[in-house]
């Protein structure tokens, strides 16, 4: 197990260098410079421009800038936003809980519906039910998030008035941010109405963000289950007279879990990508909309720091997922 962990962790370092280098170079390839963008509509006097370019160190060769950047990152300094002039890490930490809260709810929604749907589709293979689930999940997978989000807002918020349009909580509630997770903060404050408001605001964005993972998980669960259900030991289990429910949930599902868990792990990346659009539509104050704004404003420090932090988080989660294989399947543990 230790060697397994060691090989996994040692891969983190080259990935880290890869991410920083790629982001650093890529954002400098986008036309336009941050000082010009900062100056806004009116442009900027060339002298002032030169002074600011020098102040921010953008006049140095990219490789030198990269060197300084890495040195600072190693010391835990991700720089300051060019727009708000606040430390990148401070902005990230203030916004990240919102993204996590939304992502957790989205993945919970995807798991709660996707896994049972996938299992049912596999058990009732080729039935109308199976075909229906697969058709719906294919549609969900292909749905552009932007369009899907607006569609749900128009139907449930504007036409039916069941859910709020956007934001994290109704503006009338003033809840102090203790953990940054509104569901927890509202409960800590003992304000049930505010908690309800937070939940109601989560419903649509969680559905929108959870749709693609739901489709993937449902399809993966179905195919993994179909494979396992054809195995000899399932026939044996049935021959022993076990109930269908027990065969499916205990014998088949547990063995189908590995590919499913892998897919769930991979969905973390999908969630962050989806969060960027979902957060923009629902005015959700998370890191997704923060990064989108940073691209528009050419806020290099925010883009570099934000991508690095998100990259590190995705890497850690994938590492965790790899480790859980060992727990689910002892063979992996022992082979290593």
């Amino acid at each position, binding site marked *: 197990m230790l060697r397994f962990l060691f090989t996994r962790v040692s891969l983190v370092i080259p990935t880290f260098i890869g991410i920083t280098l790629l982001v650093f170079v890529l954002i400098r390839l986008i036309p336009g410079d941050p000082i010009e963008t900062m*100056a806004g509509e*009116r*442009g900027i006097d060339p002298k*002032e421009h030169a002074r600011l370019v020098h102040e921010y160190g953008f006049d140095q060769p990219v490789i030198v800038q990269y060197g300084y950047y890495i040195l600072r990152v190693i010391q835990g300094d991700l720089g300051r936003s060019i727009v708000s002039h606040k430390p990148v890490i401070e902005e990230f930490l203030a916004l990240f809980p919102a993204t996590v809260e939304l992502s957790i709810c989205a993945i919970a929604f995807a798991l709660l519906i996707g896994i049972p749907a996938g299992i049912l589709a596999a058990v009732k293979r080729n039935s109308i039910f199976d075909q229906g689930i697969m058709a719906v999940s294919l549609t969900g997978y292909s749905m552009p998030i932007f369009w899907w989000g607006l569609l749900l807002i128009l139907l449930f918020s504007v036409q039916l008035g069941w859910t709020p349009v956007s*934001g994290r909580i109704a503006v*009338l509630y003033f809840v102090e941010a203790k953990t940054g997770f509104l569901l927890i903060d509202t409960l800590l404050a003992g304000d049930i109405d505010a908690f309800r408001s937070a939940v109601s605001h989560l419903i649509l964005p969680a559905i929108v963000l959870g749709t693609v993972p739901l489709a993937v998980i449902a399809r993966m669960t179905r195919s993994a289950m179909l494979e396992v259900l054809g195995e000899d030991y399932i026939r044996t289990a049935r021959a022993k007279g076990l109930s269908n429910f027990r065969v499916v949930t205990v014998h088949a599902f547990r063995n189908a879990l590995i590919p499913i868990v892998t897919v769930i792990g991979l969905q973390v990346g999908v969630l962050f990508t989806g969060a960027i659009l979902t957060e923009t539509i629902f*005015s959700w104050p998370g890191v997704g*909309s*923060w990064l989108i704004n940073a691209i528009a404003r050419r806020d290099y420090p925010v883009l570099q720091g934000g991508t690095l932090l998100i990259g590190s988080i995705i890497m850690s989660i994938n590492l965790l997922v790899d480790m859980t294989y060992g727990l689910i399947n002892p063979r992996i543990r022992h082979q290593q």
Partner: protein
Amino acid sequence: MPHIRSLSAFAVTAALFSTPILFATPSSAKTLVYCSEGSPENFYPGINTTGTSFDANSQIYSRVVDFERGTTKVIPGLAEKWDISADGTVYTFHLRKGVKWHSNANFKPTRDLNADDILFMFERQWKESHPYFKVTSSNHSYFNDMGMPKLLKSVEKVDDYTVKVTLNAPEAPFLSDLAMEYAGVQSKEYADAMLKAGTPEKVDQEPIGSGPFYLVQYQKDAIIRYKAFPQFWGGKAKIDDLIFSITPDASVRWAKLQKGECHVMPYPNPADLDAIRKDANVTILEQPGLNIGYLAYNTTKKPFDDVRVRKAMNMAMNKKAIVDAVFLSSGVPAINPIPPTMWSYNTSIKDDPYDPDAAKKLLAEAGFPNGFETDLWAMPVQRPYNPNAKRIAELMQADLAKIGVKAEIKSFEWGEYRKRAQAGEHQMAQLGWTGDNGDPDNFLNTLLGCSSAKGNGSNIAKFCYQPFEDLVLKAKSVSDQAERTKLYEQAQVIFKEQAPWFTIAHSVQLKPVRKEVVDFKLSPFGRHTFYGVDLK
């Protein structure tokens, strides 16, 4: 019926958790919610460059002088009155007494606003040696753009409530310049305290102002919460709480307005306008904005150095068709380089008629009977004064082809576009302008004067015509508005004769506002200020 059952389950859940919308909430406090379009850069207007940031800041800070709500007229602010010396170079401001500062967890003010605070506002942006010059950012964009570093000779404190500003030359728009947001006054006492505590940047993040509202909470990309300041020198605001609910997507803003989750929204999506007009709970306020979208001919490059060519081009393009097709109902065709809402607008000027035959004749006279080839730059971005530069360029291209002019449409990344256009690399380029201070000088001199035609100035037509220049410079140094008006009216006549631009349109600002909002006034500058606004 599994489908219906699940739908109704969803409805029950949603209803269970649904939040009260604004009007359903029994509350004695009057809360106005404004669905703003983005987060402010910070809370120091001196370094802000976006309207979004100015909106967030103008509620908090007061200025020496102000613009009257809904107009470009300068009225007293922190200065009750002022005297201007006969030569127009010395301004003596007499400050209001008893102006209170806001307070927050870091700072409780011990004194009222006085001359030291006014000096702090100037010096922070002006003197590189000032301890606050570089705090947050050293880019005091508007202070520099309004020419303050060159213009100011000295700013002195005469006594606690009198400030004397001496200029290097007379400058008629000076008062208007001081009414702009960048001149918001911060507390020097707070700044000193934060400097001592080693956290000077807090001054710009947790602001202390003397304006009608104080900041209660700011969550990036989510919300800005203000409360009316009871001791505001102009009297307490009519509303008690002001909330900026940050909503970047225009269609979502409209959905929130429709549902009553906010009262006022900026920048509606043109596609939603029909639906907005049909909603009985919403009114759309309209006003031509203080802006202009134009196509500039590079008057230093052939063939546009010939006024006949420029005139011919102006007559070849069908302005009405362009405005109808691209601006829909949100623009009015532009005749003069300044908008009709601005004082000194010359109403007697007639626009060049759309007349391709006459244009062709004029072009032949200028030595181009078969037309010529040129470039035609289209901005890569959408701007209030130009919602779709590429489409406009295509329409122009088609019109010009009819008189034999082959125009090739070009575009660059926005920063690059502006830089190259200012360097004069183009033959024809679209650009536009939104006024800063409501003074005609801000259009006629900034965009068409000789000094901004040099180097990388904003006069991208590179138009430098002495008779025009003389009028505009004279108008800048005279303080009598009636006399200035005459000079600017003449300048507009010359502009039309010389045709350095094809004036396209002034965009109309459209502001959907819910019916229960009372006395919200459109700002010609496109700002959103809520002092004076009430709720039914």
